[in-house]
């Protein structure tokens, strides 16, 4: 599409570059976690950082997630900006007490005297054939925890821009990395001057008039694909990429839904008690009289994440999205 020759980079590389640039810009930024140093992380996101910045700033920690986040809290108390890697979604659970009881609350607890500018990188979601505990979508837990920001990129450019913003933020940010997009590439050019994306702004990835697909992270490409497929059915779908679950960009989302009058929330996380409930509820609160049909949800089933050979039945795909769009009471139109 573009005439300029760009050196394509993967999302994993863009994330690594964001870490590198942040570390180069600010000596307070430290990277820590399991295998992030010598190995460069199991997804190679931190590749090369230990060599460039040394082990004191890129630290292979002992294998203990509560310890990683807990020591990061102490480091942040002393003025550092730790960027913590949780190796996989489900392996962040041991750190929940530190996250909920301290990371999310320290600023409030101390009336602002002790902010904790910690970024917690969590590879999340499925679709990579990972065995049990390697494909969880745990964003509902983070969303339900006041004091955290929860951010997730869907494009390579956003991976860079949002991670820079997360590290620069004075609030703790849970930065959810859609692991099946780690190897995705788009037009992002590492050699051009980079932009830091503000946290909290959704973006319309595709405009449409029939209905809005509200989504984020790994489901964004799926929704774009669904929107293309929907053209055959005569639907012109708008796709909103939330980019940040907390803060939530009510303005962009509501504006879209008011325009289209119909909406489907799409995510991999389970449906019951998942992000979609919150999103559907708040869209409905704000757009009730614009809605032709209830806001529907297309989500993972409410089951433990399936084994690799069955995950395709679980993941929300194009067909399931189109089925939901079809249930948006189009009869009322005619």
């Amino acid at each position, binding site marked *: 599409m573009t005439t300029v020759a760009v050196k394509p980079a993967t999302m994993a590389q863009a994330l690594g570059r964001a870490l590198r640039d942040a570390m180069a810009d600010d000596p307070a930024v430290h990277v820590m976690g399991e295998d992030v140093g010598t190995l460069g992380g199991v997804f190679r996101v931190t590749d090369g950082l230990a060599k460039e910045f040394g082990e004191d700033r890129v630290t292979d920690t002992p294998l*203990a997630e509560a*310890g990683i986040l807990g020591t990061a809290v102490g480091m942040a108390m002393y003025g550092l900006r730790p960027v913590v890697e949780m190796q996989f979604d489900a392996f962040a659970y041991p750190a929940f*007490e530190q996250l909920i009881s301290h990371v999310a609350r320290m600023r409030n607890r101390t009336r602002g005297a002790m902010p904790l500018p910690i970024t917690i990188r969590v590879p999340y979601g499925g679709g990579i054939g990972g065995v049990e505990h390697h494909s969880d979508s745990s964003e509902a837990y983070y969303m339900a925890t006041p004091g955290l920001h929860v951010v997730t990129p869907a494009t390579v450019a956003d991976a860079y821009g949002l991670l820079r913003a997360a590290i620069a933020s004075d609030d703790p940010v849970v930065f959810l990395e859609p692991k099946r997009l780690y190897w995705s590439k788009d037009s992002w050019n590492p050699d051009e001057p980079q932009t830091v994306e503000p946290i909290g702004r959704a973006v319309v990835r595709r405009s449409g008039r029939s209905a809005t697909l509200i989504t984020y992270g790994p489901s964004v490409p799926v929704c774009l694909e669904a929107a293309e497929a929907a053209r055959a059915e005569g639907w012109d779908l708008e796709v909103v990429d939330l980019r940040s679950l907390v803060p939530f960009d009510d*303005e962009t989302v509501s504006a879209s839904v008011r325009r289209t009058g119909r909406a489907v929330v799409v995510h991999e996380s389970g449906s019951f008690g998942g992000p979609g409930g919150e999103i559907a509820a708040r869209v409905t609160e704000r757009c009730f009289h614009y809605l032709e049909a209830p806001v529907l949800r297309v989500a993972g089933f409410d089951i433990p994440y399936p084994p690799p050979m069955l995950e395709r039945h679980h993941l929300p795909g194009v067909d399931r999205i189109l089925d939901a769009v079809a249930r948006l009471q189009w009869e009322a139109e005619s």
Partner: protein
Amino acid sequence: MTVMEQRGAYRPTPPPAWQPRTDPAPLLPDALPHRVLGTEAAERVDPDLLRRLYAELVRGRRYNAQATALTKQGRLAVYPSSTGQEACEVAAALVLEERDWLFPSYRDTLAAVARGLDPVKALTLLRGDWHTGYDPHEHRVAPLCTPLATQLPHAVGLAHAARLKGDDVVALALVGDGGTSEGDFHEALNFAAVWQAPVVFLVQNNGFAISVPLAKQTAAPSLAHKAVGYGMPGRLVDGNDAAAVHEVLSEAIAHARGGGGPTLVEAVTYRMEAHTNADDDKRYRGDAEVEAWRAHDPIALLEHELTERGLLDEAGMQAAREDAEAMAADLRERMNQDPVLDPMDLFAHVYAQPTTQLLEQEAQLQAELDAEARHHGDEPEGAAR
């Protein structure tokens, strides 16, 4: 190379990688808690330090009594008394340099106060007007920590960060015997030892975790014995002997400051009062046990030492008591004033960058308060902002 190829060439050898990385012997604690008072070692201690400790112990006991009294008057939501444990609390505070950091557990307001924190500020959490009543940077006292043992990794991280920055700062973290059972205790000690962080862990083994006695908490020879499993020295000290606690902590801090890494200190002491004012300790312990410990009272122990050696007379004791009374009177008076609260503070510090969602909720509360105020014909409650 397959098994077959190896055969013949192979000669039995010890596993190549293994060698003891640390000599365990010096890491092990002594069999009996270290004591100073009533022993010859006491004579080597600076008399001024002993007098200073004494004055603080007397103050500390008075502080505990006053705080407990304030719960009865409804001025504190709850108070976990450190009566009987004053030697640990006070020594922990006095042993640190100005630039060092103290990481208290929820029972350790006294340590914070002995470090110089205004008792009213120290009691804010327990009074119920805010979570932390002080800027932790002011006296380098981390917020009182309620989820047990979770402050320990914070202390490790802070000490590690200070060392990385080249600052000569040591962190001292307090935890109870019960808290040693938590995973965070383990992870913190391990990180500290691997990083050789300048941090000292002081376990106040006061015999109980609420109602649960030590024997149901651990089967270890002592809690100090846990140290060897992390590769750090373990030290056992009589926690009612202020001079001994001060000495052991001083050594550990000097060791940490000198780059020697962390130490785990177990202070054997006793919680003389119920867990908090809300607890009924008659349910789980007998008077005899409490009385046996009363005979080993930290203040009496030090007082005996000082008076025997002529370092303290009735006038000195009187002065200490008066100082403590003055502190208590001031505390009582200030705690009897209702704190001025702004409900809008609920929203002020949740985020540096508040979410729009939260701003809406903030506006909602403000509107409610305004309406309430109009109703009462008053000034709006949150108007000061």
